């Protein structure tokens, strides 16, 4: 018999282009403090910490948890750092889940933080794959979007990416923590300057300084701490190798496999019917459509229809990114934890203005690396 675990508290910072008022440890502390306050527990109730942050070249500090950890307000606790690119924040939550389900710890604080405004632009590129021809994330996402549109045209067109942006920016207007809260129309997105075709400026995310934190507890503590915990129902991760000439970017297999693992754990057979909403890592507009398909909410090529018909709108049949997603707030490695935080809050009925009514099961997704890493987390209102 495995041990159950749940999210019982959540905290995030305001995500902004440049947080000049705080250092990296202070930024992380802000989210950690809010999560502890939200759970209504004290520092001494926490048994261990999992910390996630992006490339060391962003903080410019080796083993940043050594510097940042003591600022989190829970001194002397065991701390472990995970770093898996874009999925870092989700990997931290998942590690916290295993801290608890292993029986080694009862209450674990997971924190993810990044302050890219202070980074060296470009970070440390990979010698073997990228540095030689400056393939960065935008170019990679453009290649992915091109492959996706080409495969499914005319069912999927550039306009569908623009519709995703309009939807998510509209949702973000209701999210007080979002970085970009001004709505845009699809035609504004289409008219924005090209970045790497088919991506235009507004198809791409902002980059934020920000942090997120979750308190994760075992069954006994969770019931004590929260009246309505968000129980972990299923988790899956999958990594793909770096050398993948036949990698299908329009239907990424790591995402498909991570979802399969999570669905199997959560006993979910028909994701669209059994789940109430999903928060996906929409770092670029078209990716929301690609992940919606790869996670099994519709068939390949039907992502465009999902957004065009309003199915994925906040008041639609299956809301995608009611928080506004990464397109509205992109704090590096913390972004993946934000997806989980938002999904958990929806299940707890505490998402505020962007709460979707009656959410019982919600999913969070993230991707990282050169599309190599995927994580999927499913929360349920019942254990």
């Amino acid at each position, binding site marked *: *018999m*495995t*041990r159950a675990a749940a999210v019982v508290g959540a905290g995030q910072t305001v995500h902004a282009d440049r947080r000049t008022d705080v*250092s990296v440890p202070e930024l992380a502390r802000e989210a950690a403090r809010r999560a502890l306050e939200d759970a209504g527990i004290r520092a001494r109730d926490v048994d261990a910490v999992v910390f996630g942050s*992006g*490339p*060391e*070249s962003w903080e*410019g*500090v*080796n*083993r940043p*948890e*050594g*510097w940042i*950890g*003591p600022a989190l307000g829970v*001194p*002397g*606790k*065991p*701390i*472990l*750092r*995970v*770093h*898996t*690119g874009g999925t870092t924040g989700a*990997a931290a939550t*998942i*590690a916290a889940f*295993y*801290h608890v*389900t*292993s*029986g*080694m710890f009862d209450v674990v604080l997971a924190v993810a933080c990044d302050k890219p405004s202070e980074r060296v632009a470009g*970070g*440390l*590129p*990979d*010698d*073997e*794959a990228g540095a030689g021809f400056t393939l960065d994330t935008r170019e990679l996402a453009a290649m992915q979007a091109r492959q996706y549109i080409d495969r499914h045209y005319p069912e999927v067109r550039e306009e569908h990416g623009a519709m995703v942006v309009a939807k998510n920016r509209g949702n973000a207007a209701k999210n007080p923590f979002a970085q970009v809260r001004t709505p845009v129309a699809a035609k504004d997105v289409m008219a924005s300057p090209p970045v790497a075709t088919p991506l235009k400026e507004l198809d791409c995310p902002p980059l934020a300084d920000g942090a997120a934190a979750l308190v994760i507890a075992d069954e006994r503590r969770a019931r004590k701490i929260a009246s309505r915990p968000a129980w972990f129902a299923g988790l899956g*991760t*999958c*990594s*793909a*190798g*770096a*050398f993948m000439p036949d990698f299908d970017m329009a239907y990424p*297999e*790591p995402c498909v*496999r991570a979802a399969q*693992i999570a669905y199997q*754990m959560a006993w979910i057979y028909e994701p669209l019917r059994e789940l109430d909403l999903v928060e996906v890592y929409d770092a670029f507009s078209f990716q929301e459509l690609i992940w919606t398909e790869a996670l099994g909410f519709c068939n390949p090529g039907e992502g465009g229809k999902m957004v065009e018909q309003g199915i994925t709108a906040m008041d639609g049949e299956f809301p995608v990114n009611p928080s506004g997603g990464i397109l509205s707030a992109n704090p590096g490695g913390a972004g993946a934890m934000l997806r989980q935080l938002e999904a958990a809050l929806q299940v707890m009925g505490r998402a505020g203005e962007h709460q979707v009514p009656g959410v019982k099961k919600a999913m969070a997704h993230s991707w*990282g*690396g*050169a599309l*190599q890493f995927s994580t999927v987390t499913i929360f349920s209102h019942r254990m």
Partner: protein
Amino acid sequence: MRDAAVLGWAQTEHRRRAVGETPQSMVFEVVTRALASCEMTIRDIDVVIDAGSDLLDGRSTSNRAVIDAMGAHFKEEIKVAGDGLEAAIYALMRVTSGYSSTALVVAYGKSSETPARCQTLALSDPFYLRPLAVDALAAGALQARFYLHEYGLGSDAPALVAVKNREAGARNPYAQEKSPVTLEEVMASPELISPIRRLEACPVTDGACAVVIADRQTSRAASVRPAWISGTGHGADPYSPGARTLYRTESAARSARKAYAAAGISDPLSELGVLEVSEYYSYQELMLYEALGLCGEGEAADLLASGATGTGGGTVVNPSGGVLCANPLVATGLVRLAEAAAQVSGRAGEVQVDGVDRALAHSSGGLAMQFSSVMVLEG
């Protein structure tokens, strides 16, 4: 607690400069050999936990580049950005949670390609310590000075650690430093930062290590003798050296107490046959005797001088030669685990100590041993 065991392991022959090797080739080698050592194939592995360093690799999100080499393609895989022993602790959580049966732990470091000071100076924060050039060596020297001063020890006390470990390393086919040194040679070697001398500091090493951890059921059915994990602990001290009692390593003491409680150990000196500890500098091994409960505070030099922790002693510390004989950064702590597992399962070859029932593996990280991890194994 016999919920999980170390079943297989492999390490490279550690070298100052592994010319012709890449991180991928080193990783592929140890993964292949570790799986073979417990008669498994990569198909038997449920989850891969790796340790790596962006700064050491000169690459953002370093694990991206070694997924193929680890055999982690299309598997659950997570990078722990710390020492390999911390990755092993996470792997232990994964198999004891009941969701996975087997985990492969991989760690590697190719320090010859990165200026060492870049690595260790980056451990200090940009505001307070870095302007003072506090790197691992400077922080270590400061700590060594505190320790020697507190107990009125001469600088020849830690030098004896180097003599003991280099004597042991000479028997270890995987060690980088294979020649014994005399006390006179250690004392005559140049001071890097007083009181740490050249022969009392870890070498720069290229190397890798892989370990297979499995749950109870898999371990019981294994064709090899399992090294059962009976206790573990990890912890951190305050970041600023000024906020600590620097002549003690509290996080190691706390981690050990937790592990001993789980393993039912009350007198580590008589109950542990072997300890493999991460002594990046000679004085650290003395501090660790005290933190790990082998002796009282300030008594480590006497314990060492008594021969109890050396070859033929009752509680041999670093029969592999320890970190002073090979320091494949990031993999350093995982090598300690591999050595400890080898000792309790009678597979340690040339460095085998007779009749080891229980062994401890320790790792540290950060400035002046800010982070500590321990794992207790039994046969």
